[in-house]
């Protein structure tokens, strides 16, 4: 078994999907595709596909859950039953409940929730197809959906994982690298505040590797951040160009 397993890093230093260690998967983002949500976004990162809807600020139900000084933020991360190799039960698993919580906490530093007391903001992250890195891609897309809903933000949150396979630090792991590798470290980064709002790790890294991995993660997040800004403005830039063309 051991021999027949494909090596994760080839002779040429490239990964199983042909990427360089610090190369992201191809990313496509789309904003505002759901008519019924206040804000929405869709992201494809490699083979991972995620749709995010944001509602709010809206009235809190039941009313006693509301806070008198700020809006409450709720988040649901959910994987569709058909998103994985084996059918996943649609009931929220331990993992999904935990991810919902940490994703919510990743957004708490950026949302001006004090502007909307006694209301709530809901974030729904639905993973349609999973190939690793879904919590990070989910955060990236949820930032866009929040901005699309017109909720005041200190900044967009960009997120990317760094990991280690066969002794080599790599960025934006796919499912196989995540499962077979030695470490996986998802990071969410807020550029304007220079703050890390999510950092998890499973596996082991040495202290030097950790420092290097965090640096790589921030660089990857900055690249994703630029794409986020572009995706947000896209629709309006297009409308403006269409108008200018007419004249």
């Amino acid at each position, binding site marked *: 078994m051991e021999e027949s397993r494909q090596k994760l890093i080839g002779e040429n230093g490239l990964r199983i999907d042909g990427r360089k260690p610090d190369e992201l998967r191809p990313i496509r983002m789309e904003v505002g595709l759901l008519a019924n949500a206040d804000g929405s976004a869709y992201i494809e990162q490699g083979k991972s596909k995620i749709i995010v809807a944001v509602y709010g600020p809206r*009235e809190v139900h039941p009313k006693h859950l509301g806070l008198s000084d700020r809006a409450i933020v709720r988040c649901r991360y959910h994987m569709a039953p058909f998103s994985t190799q084996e059918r996943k039960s649609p009931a929220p698993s331990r993992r999904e409940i935990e991810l919902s919580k940490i994703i919510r906490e990743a957004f708490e530093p950026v949302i001006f929730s004090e502007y*909307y*007391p006694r209301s709530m903001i809901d974030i729904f992250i639905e993973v349609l197809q999973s190939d690793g890195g879904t919590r990070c891609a989910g955060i990236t897309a949820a930032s866009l959906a929040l901005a699309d809903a017109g909720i005041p933000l*200190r*900044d*967009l949150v960009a997120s990317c994982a760094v990991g280690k396979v066969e002794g080599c630090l790599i960025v934006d792991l796919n499912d196989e690298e995540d499962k077979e590798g030695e470490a996986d470290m998802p990071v969410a980064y807020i550029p304007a505040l220079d703050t890390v709002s999510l950092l998890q790790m499973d596996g082991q890294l040495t202290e030097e590797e950790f420092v290097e991995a965090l640096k790589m993660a921030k660089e990857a997040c900055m690249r994703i951040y630029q794409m986020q800004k572009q995706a*947000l403005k896209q629709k309006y830039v297009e*409308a403006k160009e269409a108008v200018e063309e007419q004249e």
Partner: protein
Amino acid sequence: MPLLVERRQLVSPGDLLAEGEYLAGDNAYKDDGRIYAQRLGLADVRGKRVSVVALKGPYIPRVGDLVIGRIVDTTLGGWIVDINSPYTANLSVSDVTGKPFSPEMVSLTKILALGDIVIAKISAFDRTRDPALTIKERGLGKVEGGVVIDLTPTKVPRLIGKKGSMINMIKQLTGCEIIAGQNGKVLIKGRNLKMVELAIHSVRMVEEQAHTSGLTDRIRKFIEEEKEKF
């Protein structure tokens, strides 16, 4: 102490707008001497104040705003009105009729039924309580006919234009009566169905192209061209 954006430049949350002695206006915030955008919108600079005109966003009530709402429920002494905002508004009986009112004698739904549309004014609102409405002024009250369309609340000022230039132009050219609620609900009334459709189309066009320049002229041209086809 540079200003880093031009007027009407498209900015997104977290974009650095200015550094140094500038002040943060609407939809902008200051952190450590730097001014950042809070929302997707167009940058605006007035003197030392840097702000962002948001392209999309929720409606937050302000005292004095004209809004168009829908009755969703009744209480002992009034109605609950959906005003397309995170907060539902209260309309009390005393803000509707001048006559004395006793709940045992008259059903509230005889005056305003569930689902009725009202044009109202926000009479009181603060962070701790839901907004209160009044319809005891000229031009306010139950809507008896017309079409209500939705608009992003942040684009209502654009629809109205400078001193009403945009909305008056659409009214004049289509002959329709148009009332724009600050909460993003726009009531359009007219005798001629084609003109109503044209007015709706024009409002939609304003929404889609709110961030472009020369819009009033473009809408005027559009309406005039469409009218010739009738």
